[in-house]
């Protein structure tokens, strides 16, 4: 079984989010980038599946050269090879198109992407890849078992889960539940050494045009100071919620 995991390089959650160039560009100076957490669940799940079923595990990303440390990290964790499509990801459609174009020429049995990236939170790329390849798709996937050519999957829905099955090939929008956080793999020294010599292929992007464009950013209005109410005066809290905030 050939598995491809789509990886996105995102600012660490603890990062301060700022913008430059008159609030039109994300300010990446001083930002620590990490593997998108939703992608990490997919990567570990892919390794478990490869260990059980055999096959290959490739990671793919759309990004400029600054994403290579993250790609090397996925190789150190255990991916066999990597592909970087040399383009700054600016739009869900063109990002998905680059990945789909690659996969048309290099088909995979299972394509796992995170259900959304923690920077732009678009959550659109995995479903778009599925459409471009005319494959079945399961979003917010929190359970995946593969037997032969058949996948049994579950996806998160409000208040529970839905169980589905499909023959491979299949596209997955992954999240926590594919594996648990405690099961996430981290690179060990041997992996880090091996990663240096694993193949990382760089492909030039096509010239497809973005369907959406980011114009500018603003910060949400900051909250005022927290109004502290004395623990012996709970009625005051309820009073404030009722009369001031008008939420109960």
């Amino acid at each position, binding site marked *: 079984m050939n598995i491809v995991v789509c990886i996105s390089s995102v600012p660490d*959650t603890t990062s301060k989010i700022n913008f430059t160039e008159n609030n039109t560009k994300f300010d990446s100076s001083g930002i620590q980038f990490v593997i998108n*957490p*939703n992608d990490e*669940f997919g990567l570990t799940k892919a390794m478990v599946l490869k260990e059980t079923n055999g096959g290959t595990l490739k990671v793919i990303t759309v990004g400029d050269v600054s994403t290579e440390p993250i790609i090397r990290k996925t190789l150190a964790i255990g991916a066999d090879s990597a592909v970087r499509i040399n383009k700054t990801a600016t*739009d*869900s*459609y063109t990002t998905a198109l680059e990945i789909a174009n690659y996969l048309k020429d290099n088909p995979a049995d299972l394509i796992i992407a995170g*259900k959304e990236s*923690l920077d*732009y*939170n*678009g959550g659109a790329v*995995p*479903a*778009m890849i599925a*459409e471009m390849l*005319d*494959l*079945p*798709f*399961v*979003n*917010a996937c*929190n359970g995946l078992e593969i037997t032969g050519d058949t996948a049994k999957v579950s996806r*998160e*829905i*409000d208040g*529970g*889960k*839905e*169980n*589905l*099955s*499909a023959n491979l090939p299949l596209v997955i929008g992954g999240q*926590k539940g594919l594996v648990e956080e405690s099961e996430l793999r981290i690179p060990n020294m041997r992996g880090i050494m091996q990663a240096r010599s694993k193949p990382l292929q760089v492909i030039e992007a096509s010239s497809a045009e*973005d*369907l*959406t464009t*980011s*114009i*500018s*950013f*603003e*910060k*949400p209005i900051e*909250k005022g100071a*927290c*109004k*502290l*109410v004395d*623990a012996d005066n*709970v*009625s005051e*809290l*309820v009073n404030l*919620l*009722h009369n001031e*905030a008008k*939420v*109960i």
Partner: protein
Amino acid sequence: MSVLVYTESWDGNFRKSTFEAASYACETAKILGTEVIAISLGEVSNDELNKLGNYGVNKVVSFNAIDKGDSQSATKAIAKIANDSSVLIFSNTNTAKMIAPRLSAKLKAGIVSNVITLSESVSPLKVKRQAFSSKAIELATVNSSIAILAIAPNSFKLIETGGNCNIEQDSTNEKGAINIIGKETASGKISISEAEIVVSAGRGLKGPENWGMIEELAELLGAATACSKPVSDIGWRPHGEHVGQTGKAVAADLYFAIGISGAIQHLAGINSSKVIVAINTDPEAPFFKAADYGIVGDAFEVVPKIIEEIKQLRG
């Protein structure tokens, strides 16, 4: 060039987020001077379909044989009528996120998700959305002739227009390459992502046996219950209640954080809530910096008092 709205039903009933999307579609149609056509997937009664009229929908096309979990055939069905539309509106649910981006790819229609306001202009379409886990608001524009907008839950108020809608049944029977086996749900639970009030608790509660008062407060307020990541990791509460970066996102009118310290990963999931109340024994808990109201105190003393006070308030 109508406005199309995807409506999501479970067990034959529409969700609140569906009516929010319909209201949003209706306001957008007013700006464009056109009508709203709704799309329903799966078996839904005429009575239920007609409720869409109350939120400004003029016509609903009910694809009664198509399952929304089969995004391939859902996309094909919607695409057949979407070409006559200029804007497609979705609520940003996990299921809609399987269909809306597929339509975007199929129709080459730019998609903007997590939309929180009406469009600032329609030609070209410019609209505000949440990004960076609600730490920023992005103004985005759509370059294609058809635009797809997915609305963040609880970001747009319901607007009742008091009307009926025409119902058109379409029994197109397509099957994609996926089989839907069935769903497992905890019945009667209020959805965390759609709830107006969420009562959430963390490790400060010391054990799963102490959740009675959390559930009581939630029931009293018609609220959903939620929890922090450590609590779902240890198994005190189900995973579906985990709120935060890798869990569910909450955009409630009122969010109670009881015995939760307020790790940045948790705050990333709840910071689009409008009013936040923190209750914690530790005055240095980071949650007090993110909260609107706070009580430094023991949840085991404070929460029962809140319950009593609310009961008194409600008479």
